[in-house]
């Protein structure tokens, strides 16, 4: 199995099989990030497709094979931001899964343990989603990348191509706002 740097190098040199392998290796990561940012399958799917199409057409912009991951995430987050801006106030909260293809609906349904858990999880998710949706795109994505996806501030700075201090500031402000909006949920359990 080829390493990521080898695959990226081969891709830059025009190896189309290497590109296909990169799609397979990164598709889940991109989908996961996009879904967490946008809150629904259809938008996440669009981000996945568009991200790899853009990566394919912009391989000349890849200056260093070691930067592929941050490059990929940058393309994905930028496209997600575009969708958020187009959405302008239409939240992705409460995805209507009935509009999804049947096999995906079935698969998603199987992931919920019980109806009660489903209800509680759904409520919690909607609350968190609403709180995230109220944040400006950069703060929202910074919070998701750091606190959900586990990226370090340095990695996020590489994705956004901004100073680490900016990431730190965005994260701090995002956390303050989220703490305010989710105050009830953050109370210690008695």
């Amino acid at each position, binding site marked *: 199995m080829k390493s990521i740097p080898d695959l990226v190098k081969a891709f830059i040199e025009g190896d*189309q099989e290497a*590109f*296909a392998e990169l*799609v*397979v290796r990164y*598709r*889940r990561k991109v*989908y*996961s*990030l*996009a*879904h*967490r940012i946008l809150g629904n*399958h259809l938008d*996440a*799917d669009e981000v*996945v*497709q568009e991200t*790899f*199409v853009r990566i*394919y*057409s912009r391989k000349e912009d890849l200056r260093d094979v070691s930067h592929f991951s941050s490059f990929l995430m940058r393309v994905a987050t930028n496209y997600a931001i575009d969708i958020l801006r187009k959405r302008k106030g239409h939240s992705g909260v409460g995805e209507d899964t009935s509009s999804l*293809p049947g*096999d*995906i609906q*079935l*698969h*998603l349904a199987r*992931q919920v343990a019980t109806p009660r858990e489903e209800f509680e*999880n759904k409520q*919690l*998710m909607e609350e*968190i*989603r609403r709180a*995230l949706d109220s944040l400006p795109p950069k703060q929202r994505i910074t*919070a*998701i990348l*750091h*606190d*959900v996806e586990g990226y*370090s*501030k340095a990695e996020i700075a590489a994705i956004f191509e901004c100073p680490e201090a900016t990431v730190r500031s965005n*994260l*701090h402000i995002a*956390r303050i706002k*989220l*703490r305010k909006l*989710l105050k009830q*949920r*953050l109370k*210690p359990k008695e």
Partner: protein
Amino acid sequence: MTCRHTRLLLEDFLDHELPQAERDQVQRHLESCTDCRSEYEELVRLKELMGTVTAPDPGRDYWQQTTQVVLAKTVDSTAATAADRVAVRRREAAKTAFVRSLISAAASLAILVSAVMIGSLHRSAGDWQDPAEQPVLLSASIQEELDLRRVPVFTEYERGRLARGMLLLGAPGYLGKSAVLPEYLWAAM
């Protein structure tokens, strides 16, 4: 360490991004300060809550389909574009070759038709054992001369031939002769 200083470092402490010495100082302060500890615990719960923002797994079929769609838009599209260009060039070349062959065929046909016509004329000529029996064609100038001079100069035999309707230009013995051709034709009939 003061509360104010501790709260400035709380998030880095939470994110494990403090140097060990500072980390120890914050840890000691949290153990002794209820307010700062309460603040820190709220941050911990927020991070845990954020961790529940999961993305579902749409299933293997989705991954396969999406990968195919992506490859169709990228790798296959590039290959298809190149293949399309080759196909277009081949079609153009085939079209040109077809047109050329049509032209060649038309030219060949024209030559063939001409050859058949000439051949049929020659064959017509060959139908008569006696070359003198062959019908002849009168040119317009000879016709004119005949009309002008109105002199019956054809023999009975010649009139018979004229009656058959065709006179070959330049047939030996006929050039220069003048006759009122229409009259002799009728008379021969």
